[in-house]
């Protein structure tokens, strides 16, 4: 059980201004002077938090899926790139490469403030070389082609939860890292993502929020649940709902499962944060007062999880938990 020590109440979070119905930029064929080969220019849009931005990311996925094998990513129309966009675009590049395609990044089209942020979170050093990451308001961009449990724990417990943006006791910090680790382990065990898992986080001081996004490009939760149930007619929303119940797992012969998210849900509720999961055409969102499971028209082949925590003044810790009752 998580205990919240007394602290100031925090006003309702500021909503980012998002507009539905944005026209997605159409890809253009361009000829590269250096290589003399045609590439498809993909315009990276402005990406913040909220359904419209996720739709734009998934539209990107469809663009690179449908046309050609050589792409130039153009950032000239991108005024902001949140952590979800960074993780997703990193994964998208690796997905294209894994399929035998090529991606060039048109660094000259990056706005200086975005370039600085991409340097800070290490995205630039991965794809361009050079400096970064360094500590600031970023939680580093990370690519895991296979499960590196020690590196992952260090990333979650120190680089994300250990920055004191949310005041957690050491015990709770590692306990939460364990719960989020489970998301990664599930991605490696169940998603069949050929490129692994991509992560990035960001602290938003003005919003007083810290967000972490992890994305894989695998078969997704609905597909796994349908396969497990041997029933292809199950709605994505129903599959998502089932997967989020305690005690469910698609691992054959497993002695139960699905206990890992409880503590994370509890913190999200106490903290007034949010947990969002997009998986193919399924969507789940957990807020402080509600859980919703929906069908979505805009989708991509993979699973994307974003955890948002409010940076309040409260101190969260685990209450004493061991009792004298028999364990079994």
């Amino acid at each position, binding site marked *: 059980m998580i205990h919240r020590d007394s602290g100031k109440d925090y006003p309702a979070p500021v909503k980012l201004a998002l507009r539905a119905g944005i026209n997605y930029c159409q890809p253009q064929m361009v000829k590269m002077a250096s290589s003399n080969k045609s590439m498809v220019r993909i315009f990276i849009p402005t990406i913040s938090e909220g359904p419209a931005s996720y739709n734009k990311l998934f539209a990107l996925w469809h663009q690179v899926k449908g046309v050609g094998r050589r792409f130039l990513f153009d950032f000239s129309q991108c005024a902001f790139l949140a952590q979800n966009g960074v993780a997703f675009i990193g994964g998208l590049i690796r997905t294209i490469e894994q399929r035998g395609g090529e991606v060039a990044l048109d660094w000259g089209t990056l706005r200086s403030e975005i370039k600085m942020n991409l340097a800070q979170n290490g995205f630039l050093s991965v794809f361009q070389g050079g400096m970064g990451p360094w500590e600031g308001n970023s939680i580093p961009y990370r690519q895991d082609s296979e499960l590196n449990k*020690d590196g*992952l*724990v260090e990333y979650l417990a120190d680089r994300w939860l250990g920055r004191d943006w949310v005041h957690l006791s050491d015990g709770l910090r590692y*306990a939460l890292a364990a719960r989020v680790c489970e998301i990664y382990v599930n991605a490696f065990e169940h998603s069949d993502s050929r490129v692994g898992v991509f992560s990035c986080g960001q602290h938003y001081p003005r919003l007083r929020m810290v967000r972490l996004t992890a994305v894989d490009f695998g078969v997704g939760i609905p597909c796994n649940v349908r396969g497990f149930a041997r029933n292809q007619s199950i709605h994505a929303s*129903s599959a998502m709902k089932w997967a989020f*119940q305690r005690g469910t797992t698609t*691992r054959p012969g497993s002695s139960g499962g699905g206990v890992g998210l409880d503590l994370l849900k509890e913190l999200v509720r106490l903290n007034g944060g949010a947990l969002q999961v997009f998986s193919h055409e399924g969507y789940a969102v957990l807020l402080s007062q509600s859980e919703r499971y929906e069908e979505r028209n805009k989708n991509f082949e993979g699973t994307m999880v974003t955890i948002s925590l409010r940076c309040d003044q409260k101190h969260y810790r685990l209450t004493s938990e061991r009792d004298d009752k028999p364990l*079994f």
Partner: protein
Amino acid sequence: MKLTIFDLIGPNCVTYTDGLKVYDLIHPELQRGRAVELDFTNVRVIVSLFLNAAIGRLMQDVPTGELNRLLTISNLPPGGFETLKRVIENSDDFYHHPQVREALDRILAEHAAEV
């Protein structure tokens, strides 16, 4: 038998495979009626997948009375006990109360039937 988990697995007990390493060592001991202590000193992180494999599976064929009598678990990190309790509850349902799992599976069947 006393097993120091840190020595066997390290500070981060994360994967099902790691859990099976522990299971493979302690399951024969418990089946022979020998006492086992799992000491988690210096372990920082325990994921439920690990505990499902290491301990949850024991409930398949070791009676709960025997587990209470023979198995001691000490020095769990913060949050570990809560995870362990939930793993044990789930395993109990899985092996001894199939109607719980059937109820969950009915959610899927009902929604599929609506299509």
